[in-house]
């Protein structure tokens, strides 16, 4: 096979793996949109917050230390103990559940039945609030995140492709782990929504709020549940992205990458988020590979959006989304 084809294949393979990382973020959006019709812009910041909390627990940081020190003149930073990862992750999940409960109580409850744009704006406000809170609570420095996931070139892929094609492909081991974790997560979510009572309740709420209420499903409980699961997904996404580059503010910007994924896959479909992510990832990498000599690179930021836009013009609801029916 010619060199270009091989390189293109390698780029495509990497596109698949980075696409999975995007899908992980998009999953959170899909969950919340399915259950409450809200487009949760705060998902990216939730990922950042979850990752910050995890690191904070792992290293025994004192939350709000900067504020306490400024207000009372003390100088405490660390509790002195460290938590093993296996304990820190459930602790962080508990925090995210608490956060979901608070959000439902303080924000969602009061905004029932408002126009979608209002809800969207409320989540942007929430995103800002959470960002400031995360900074004050845990500090704005870069924190390395280590949950034991390996990184580096995958020897297995390198050797297999070398034997097959004469050129070893590069794939990051972390991406392969992300693939495995995403598969487990999606399977778990699908099993949850298809075969458990609460999962069915979730689907009922996604279908029709009024009807769900009338059969006795507690809307508020379902919302707390949905936001908690979205928080869990955000934690997983935060761990994956944070392991790559350390936990810092720019982690919240991955939400902007998830939007084209949602467009492609449809706002309400979990397999859609996966397929959309894969398509966007591959498209981005291939576009960059072929067009970089022509238009100069650094196209990651906008190509995904252009691709999504092109899709929108032909299929406004995305590949797997529900068809939008408008009534006059």
């Amino acid at each position, binding site marked *: 096979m010619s060199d270009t084809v091989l390189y293109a294949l390698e780029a495509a393979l990497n596109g698949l793996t980075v696409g999975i990382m995007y899908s992980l973020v998009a999953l959170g959006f899909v969950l919340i949109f399915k259950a409450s019709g809200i487009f949760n812009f705060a998902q990216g910041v939730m990922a950042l917050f979850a990752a910050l909390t995890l690191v904070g627990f792992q290293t025994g940081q004192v939350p709000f230390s900067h504020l306490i020190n400024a207000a009372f003149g003390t100088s405490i930073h660390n509790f002195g103990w460290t938590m093993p990862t296996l304990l820190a992750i459930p602790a962080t999940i508990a925090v995210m559940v608490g956060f979901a409960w608070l959000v439902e109580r303080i924000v969602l409850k009061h905004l029932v039945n408002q126009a979608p744009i209002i809800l969207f704006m409320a989540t942007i406000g929430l995103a800002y609030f*959470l960002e400031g809170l995360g900074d*004050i609570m845990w500090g704005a420095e870069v924190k390395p995140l280590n949950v034991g996931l390996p990184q580096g070139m995958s020897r297995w892929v390198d050797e297999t492709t070398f034997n097959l094609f004469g050129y070893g492909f590069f794939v990051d081991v972390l991406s392969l782990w992300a693939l495995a974790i995403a598969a487990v997560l999606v399977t778990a979510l699908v099993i949850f929504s298809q075969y458990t009572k609460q999962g069915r309740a979730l689907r009922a709420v996604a279908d029709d709020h009024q009807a769900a209420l009338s059969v006795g499903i507690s809307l508020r409980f379902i919302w707390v549940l949905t936001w908690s699961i979205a928080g869990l997904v955000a934690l997983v996404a935060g761990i994956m992205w944070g392991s790559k580059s350390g936990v810092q503010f720019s982690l919240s910007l991955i939400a902007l990458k998830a*939007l084209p994924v949602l467009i492609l896959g449809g706002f309400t479909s979990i397999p859609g988020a996966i397929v959309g992510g894969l398509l966007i990832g591959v498209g981005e990498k291939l576009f960059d590979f072929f067009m970089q000599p022509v238009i100069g690179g650094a196209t990651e*930021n906008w190509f995904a959006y252009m691709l999504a836009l092109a899709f929108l013009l032909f299929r*406004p609801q995305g590949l797997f989304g529900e068809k939008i029916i408008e009534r*006059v």
Partner: protein
Amino acid sequence: MLYREAGDFKTSYASDNQTFPIRFDRYAYWVVLLLAVCVVPFFLNDYWTKSIIVPFLIYVIAALGLNILIGYCGQLSLGTGAFMAVGAYATFKLTMMAPGLNVFVVFILAGLVTSAVGVLFGLPSLKIKGFYLAVATLAAQFFLIWLFTRQGWFFNYSPTGMITMPVRTMLGFAVTGPSASAAAIYLTCLFFVIVMAWLARNLTRGTTGRSWMAIRDMDIAAEIIGVNPLIAKLTAFAVSSFFVGVAGALLFGVQLGAAEAGEAFGINKSFLVLFMVIIGGLGSIMGSFLGAAFLVVLPVILKVLLVDSLGWPSDLARHLEVMIIGALIVLVLILEPHGMAALWRTIKDKLRLWPFPH
């Protein structure tokens, strides 16, 4: 009692249809205008002008533009930052290519260029609605910023990619560059605000505005009764982009003096103007003013309060400021989803009856 309507009879259709039917409103408007033009320039403090008043005036224009698009026509757009960048870069190129051209004309031409670009990126709105349109405008946002940072023609092949505004004068006074006096800058921006606000108010009161609002409320029904959606939506994008382009031109030319697309016109700018419109009130001219004032003045007040008066470390103040803005957005949306303009209207309504309760 204060806000009298009794005894105020209209004798012609024109006077009945005027923007400020209540006499108190009319007089107050003229008084404020007079004060703003004739009195304030003599009391200007450099810091107040450059940090609060001029940004406020510039963002009013941007908020008016975005309000026309989102509030009056219902087309959600997140590309405001990029359109402001178009205005800024158009100003730069025009003033470099034609140094003799009057700077006010340059700003207006920049607005027209942005209008054309806005129509281009508004074309998807004919097929896409709601959040999906927001994502399409995000495509415009990222693409345009990439264009301005990667294609050398836009920044005259300067090695760093930054554009700087040379000194330009109007009526003999410098209005751009460091030597421009606070009064000159203030009056330039005020001029544009008055003209644009007048334009916006009258466009939204007329047929154009009504066709926009029809599209916003129920576009299929509007089409059925004869409102041409193509013309309505594209004119909304055109007018809105004109406003936003002029705002971007002023921001670059008068306020900043040097800019780089990625930093000054990024997605944060888009969100900032969106917040102004939402908090101020969708579909209201007064709302644009209130929202812009709120979001320009709030950070400064917080900084003065927390850092200067209480002596807290500035980064803590900044984090708190972000938290407070976020919390306030949520609070405003919960308490009054129609924004501060609705609050203003309620106050006026109560005043019309005062001292009677109803």
